[in-house]
């Protein structure tokens, strides 16, 4: 969580933000998708500087963290299904099940980053004390 403050399955991509290990003020915007039989991926800083580790067909440690956090958040099956992985193996890290060719895609990180900022604004909204009768439909998740 400290490492990956944001991960979502949106527009066919597993996308998220990974905090830099070396610089507290820097984050990496990372994503993986599946199109036309290939896994495309990308990783760059929020200022669109490419990550040195993600190039050619090699996933960087940020993408590793992103996929691991996605599995924690959404469950292995759902993430594997989302990335259309042929024969997933839940006993290993998800990256080992990316059997289709992996290619570094080129797209700007800005739309993902702005989604993350939107996500953060939820925490800026004030706590409210007006009644919300619609709560009845949203009982808690998970039984102990």
């Amino acid at each position, binding site marked *: 969580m400290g490492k990956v403050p944001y991960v979502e399955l949106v527009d066919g991509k597993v996308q998220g933000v990974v905090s830099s290990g070396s610089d507290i003020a820097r984050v990496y915007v990372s994503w993986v998708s599946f199109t036309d039989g290939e896994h495309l991926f990308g990783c760059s800083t929020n200022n669109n500087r490419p990550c040195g580790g993600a190039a050619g067909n090699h996933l960087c440690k940020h993408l590793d963290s992103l996929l691991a956090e996605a599995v924690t958040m959404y469950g292995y099956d759902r993430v594997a299904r989302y990335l259309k992985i042929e024969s997933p193996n839940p006993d290993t890290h998800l990256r080992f099940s990316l059997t289709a060719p992996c290619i570094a895609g080129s797209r700007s990180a800005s739309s993902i980053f702005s989604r993350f900022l939107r996500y953060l604004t939820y925490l800026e909204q004030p706590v409210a004390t007006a*009644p919300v009768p619609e709560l009845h439909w*949203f*009982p808690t998740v998970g039984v102990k």
Partner: protein
Amino acid sequence: MLASQLESLLATDRPGVDAALQLVTDLDAGLLTGYGRPNPDRDAALAALTSAVAATPLADKVAAATLAIAEGIVTDEQLAVVAAARSALLGAVHDALLSDVDEATDRARVDVAAGEAVEPDKKVAALRGAARAWLTELAITGVAGLDEAFLGDVNPIVEGLGGHPAGRRLAVLLDGLSAELRSCTPIALMAEPPMRRWADLWSRAQLLSRPGHVDEVPDDRISGRLLVLGTELFEHSTLFGVVVHGVVETGKEGVPRLVRATVTAPKVDVITGPAMWNLITDRPNLMTALAEDRCLELTDMPITPTGELVWSDEDAKPGEVVDPLATARLHLVQAVATRTHPLDRHPVAIAEPVFVEQYKVIKGEEPKFNLGGATLDIDVSRLSPAAPLTVKNVAASTACIGVLRWDAGSWTLSPLAVQAPVKRVPTLIHNGQWAAGPTDPKVAKAVERNDSVRVLRERAGRLLRK
């Protein structure tokens, strides 16, 4: 609640309820396939709805809307009428069930004058218009045909509404509904999509986004000692909700009044479990009262006609320690309740606090209470990971405060607080116990290690408004 009261509640048979719910089920099938194409089954369900409301003021409007839809004219006007008629039908079911509860438990309800209506500001009105357009398109397409791109279209509307107090309810609802639909796409492949639930949420959103919908501001105030009975916890991916049930002792001769207080905090989906309490640290008096089992002295606390305290923390002073079980034993029998707001009448809204003891637990994955021969189903699905109360505690309990709910055709008890042995000592365990942080050192450590609220706030502080 006594064994005889439970027995009489379970024995009550309401002949109209099944028929009404069957009609709703038939109608909801139309929302799955969509209003955009001809569908004789849907039209038959709409015709049945028309005759169901024939003796009500809705009759003419529903008949006209049904006719228009059958001819292929589907706008938000027609759909709002369908949503209203469906809600009226479920409202009647709610009324019947609630009067059964009142009859069985001798609970009195008082009529209170409505609050003052406030017109929403222009911005909220515009956002409601956008919400109506989205809801209309959803109904025309049909739930089965929704894709991710369409479901994402609601995000800016939710964002706009979330920033306004008058928009919060609709924002909570649209965000919960769209996230749920998104996680289920492709819905066409689902074996059994929960259509009753989704149609409920869609209908409520329709009604809340009508131009004529006005928010009511409470103009009544209450003073006296608030004794907490228990806490219900709610959540979806972007919301944490706490509802406190209690009674207010007003004056010397005053009859105790059943009240509720709600606190809602926006969140994101990575914030789960006990860490959610970190979102509402700015209501210290209420949280202290929950965590330390204290009563609260209220001074002129705003209260709505439906018995909802609109919590203002500075008007509540924590007092002495009071055992909720004692409160339940002493006050629940004669406490006076209020009526549900007309728009909120729906079987799901029935959550009546009751107290049971001297039962035998029928063990199993879903424990049941045998109360003098009558069996009460326990709804453990509402136990929250943000609270210490577990299925095991419920199964070992000797006394229980819960809310009586009605779901899928039967009555259930949803536990809020129990007395159960911990290391052989009878102990009070309840849903509000971790309001000031987990009391279990192992859980506290885990929350601290993975303090999502702190991490995200730190990230926000560094990355927002640069």
